[in-house]
């Protein structure tokens, strides 16, 4: 129930800046639209831990700046590869085990890997991640382990 209220609040907070009209009529439309959407979603049973992960917000606020910094660093590395006079790449596909317990955690980890240039998740079966890296060093450094650990902390206890 709490989660339904959260979803309603998020949707309405999205509506206000996007509509940019603050007359009572338009705010009324927004209230009605959000309510209908949330009621339909709740009746379909799709408002759960996975679709509205508000329990991750506080830990996510600490994760996102770290992720942005990682993205910046690997961008610089890939830019150096591209701008070198001779392009010298050594791509490879590696498999490794991820330590997340929930599908949501795996989703966040896989997307973080893909969002970082230099590594792309090409497939996931259970815990087994298949990752394509532009150069070997991108993947077997300690940074992937660091990211793995941080996402495991982010998803918290259990599911």
């Amino acid at each position, binding site marked *: 129930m709490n989660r339904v209220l959260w979803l309603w609040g998020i949707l309405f907070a999205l509506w206000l800046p996007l509509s940019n009209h603050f007359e009572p009529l338009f705010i009324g439309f927004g209230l009605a639209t959000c309510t209908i959407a949330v009621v339909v979603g709740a009746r379909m049973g799709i408002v759960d831990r996975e679709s509205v992960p508000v329990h991750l917000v506080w830990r996510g606020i600490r994760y996102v700046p770290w992720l942005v910094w990682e993205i910046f660093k690997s961008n610089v590395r890939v830019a150096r590869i591209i701008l070198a006079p001779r392009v010298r790449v050594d791509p490879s596909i590696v498999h490794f085990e991820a330590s997340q317990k929930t599908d949501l955690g795996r989703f966040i980890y896989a997307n973080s890997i893909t969002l*970082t240039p230099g590594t792309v998740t090409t497939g996931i079966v259970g815990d087994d991640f298949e990752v394509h890296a532009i150069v070997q060093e991108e993947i077997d450094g300690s940074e992937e382990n660091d990211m793995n650990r941080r996402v495991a902390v982010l998803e918290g206890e259990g599911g």
Partner: protein
Amino acid sequence: MDQVLSVLTWALLLSGAFFLVTGALGMVRLPDVFTRMHAAGMADTMGAGLILAGLCLYSGANLVTVRLVLILAFLWFTSPIATHALAKAALSGGTEPYTLGAGTDGEGEGGGAP
């Protein structure tokens, strides 16, 4: 204060443009579709991110900034999913990933690998 803001906006926009052009250059130079994905990812993350951050700084605290942040959030949520779908489709479609020893069709490689 205005001076500092303006210089910062310039710096963000120009570095964003640099990453965009570098990523696009990488899409032309790199040898196969998987390595080009990494270059495209550069333009999606840092290129778009820095330019939109510069625009946020320029517009100040108002609803325009909220929209810019929303655009950036959508881009950063959807781009890895699209890249992953592309990588998976390319693998299942039978595209062989380029490896250092195998081919010499890479533009920068040309058989000059050590």
